[in-house]
């Protein structure tokens, strides 16, 4: 594989996150209604406003985070670009990756909540919100690189 494989975070996750946020808000409101008899009104109002503002912030930030996330994989290295308020560019040489962990959540074919974690000595790199196919392909590339490194080092044990 000479040319880099470019991936972007799965945009479907934004829709599912909105649904999840809506459900969370509804659930929190029900909880506040249930405890309204036991807790002072002021506290309920403050809690409701705080939760709502955090949720609004998340609903604004999350889609932008997903839209700008970008990953490039070659046989030698992995490059990540994440974040929009604090932009983070990461470079991970595959020679330092000891193992790769793939996390696939239930219904991830629909939701896009798949994660790939590159485990290196002293650090971890997470590629979040991938499609299942992307997560599988990235894992295969990285595992192949690890295997060829082990095979080439196998002779001298160094």
């Amino acid at each position: 594989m000479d040319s880099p494989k470019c991936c972007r975070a799965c945009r479907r996750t934004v829709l599912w996150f909105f649904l999840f946020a809506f459900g969370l808000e509804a659930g929190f409101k029900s909880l506040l209604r249930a405890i309204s008899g036991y807790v002072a009104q002021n506290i309920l109002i403050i809690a409701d406003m705080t939760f709502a503002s955090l949720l609004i912030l998340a609903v604004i930030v999350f889609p932008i985070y997903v839209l700008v996330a970008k990953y490039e994989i070659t046989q030698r290295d992995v490059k990540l670009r994440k974040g929009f308020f604090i932009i983070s560019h990461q470079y991970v040489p595959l020679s330092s990756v000891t193992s790769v962990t793939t996390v696939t959540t239930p219904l991830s074919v629909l939701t896009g909540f798949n994660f790939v974690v590159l485990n290196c000595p002293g650090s971890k790199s997470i590629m979040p919100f991938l499609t299942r196919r992307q997560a599988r392909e990235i894992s295969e590339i990285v595992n192949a690189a690890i295997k060829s490194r082990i095979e080439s080092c196998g002779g001298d044990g160094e």
Partner: protein
Amino acid sequence: MNGTHDKKLTQRAREFLSFRQHPIKIVRYMAKYLWLLLLSLAKYLIASHFDIKSWIEANWFDLVILLVILGFAFIRWIMVYFELGKDRIITHTGFLGMTKTVVYFDDITTLSLSQGAISYLLRSCAVYIETDADCVQATDIRIDLTKSKAMEIYHIISQKAKTQPGFVFKSPKKQMVLFSFLFTSAISGTAVLLTVLYQAYLITDREFDRRVISRVNSQIHQIEDSSIWIYFLAAGLLIGFIWLMSFISNLLRHWDFTCKRGKNYLRIHSGKGARRHHLLRRKYMNYLDFTQTFLMRMFRICSVEVSCTGYGKRWKEISALIPITTTKDAVQSAKLIAPEFSLCKPQVKTSKACMPGFIVLPALAAVAAILLGIVMQNLFPLRRQQIIFIEIMLALPFIWLTIVKCEAAVTTSMGFDGENVTLSYCRWYTFHKVALKRGNITKVTIRRNPLARMFGTCTVVIYTTGEDSRKHLIGGVNYKNTLRILKEKGFSFIADKATDSE
């Protein structure tokens, strides 16, 4: 024939014991607070005037529990053993020896032997074997052996180093006192805390006097002497005592510090009272760290630490390679002890123009502390004296941090020269100059917040090999220069058109 049979039994017993831990381990396998049960039993024995029969009748259940615990400890001691192969050590540890750990000598990063005063009397020695793997337990292998067996393992593993003459570094004793003083339990933090407590003692004592004077008439007998001032004094004395004990233990831990360089290993010996031997595998050393506080920097002294998995992991252990010396001597000695690491000239540096970025946060924190104090003085005018004191104690660390960051603003840098990488940065109050190999870098991250994007700077975060390696943050460097230098050295990033056009 009986004699031969006895000899065989003795031989078997010796063989059996030679691969078991020191019998002192039976005591350590027993419950930590077993002595509480023993004290209780002893108390009843004394109370019954050593009437054994009635004592057994009254405490038979406790005695049964004690025997069960002793039995379990003995069984565990029997089940835990080790085997020495030509190229590996195999240990059967854990509960009833169910955990089998195989470590090849080639994979060992650090071998440490530790013998305290009591262990010295009992001729036992704790052996710690570490590799770069992130294992479930704190240490890959930890066993307590007889001193002779521990030294046998030590010599087997280090036999290659024996044939090579090496450079030997010894730390003078006066320097060790200074090293212990500087590296004992955050001396400046302790000094601040002691000052706070002493001042609190004075304030509460004066507060009581003030109350007495204000109620001078017949109500004197109603004033309660809370004597709270004495508790502050006691707390201060206690903290001072704890610091002193920490200083003495640090000093004894690193007394007679010697470092010998061999072909494949560094052999480090130190300690008075509790003697420690460390064998560091040179190919698994991750980096050298020339550490200085601001005061050390002013007096041109520094300490050199080495990152090697397992060394410096134990409680209160500092991973010292050169405990303390002048900066010039440290650089020369480090070249001789660990010539594979060398310092190189910086290629990306900060400048005075970057100073605002470094000092803005601590300066704001100091100003906030002072402003808060002024506001509180207006709200509580009667407590003015106490508030001024608290205000100063809160602002002082941030003012000092601002001064330190002023120096950091002109000394932060990154340099690459072939395989050698040198990083100079300041973390909180400590300056670090890290020498590492390019091959030990596992990840490079460039971070930019909105302010950094505005001023064209960035923070570079470099991760290195090691079980629990610290990341190195080089902040406030020019973004374009950094990107160019990193690209030249083989670290490329995804092009970010919007920000790269700045």
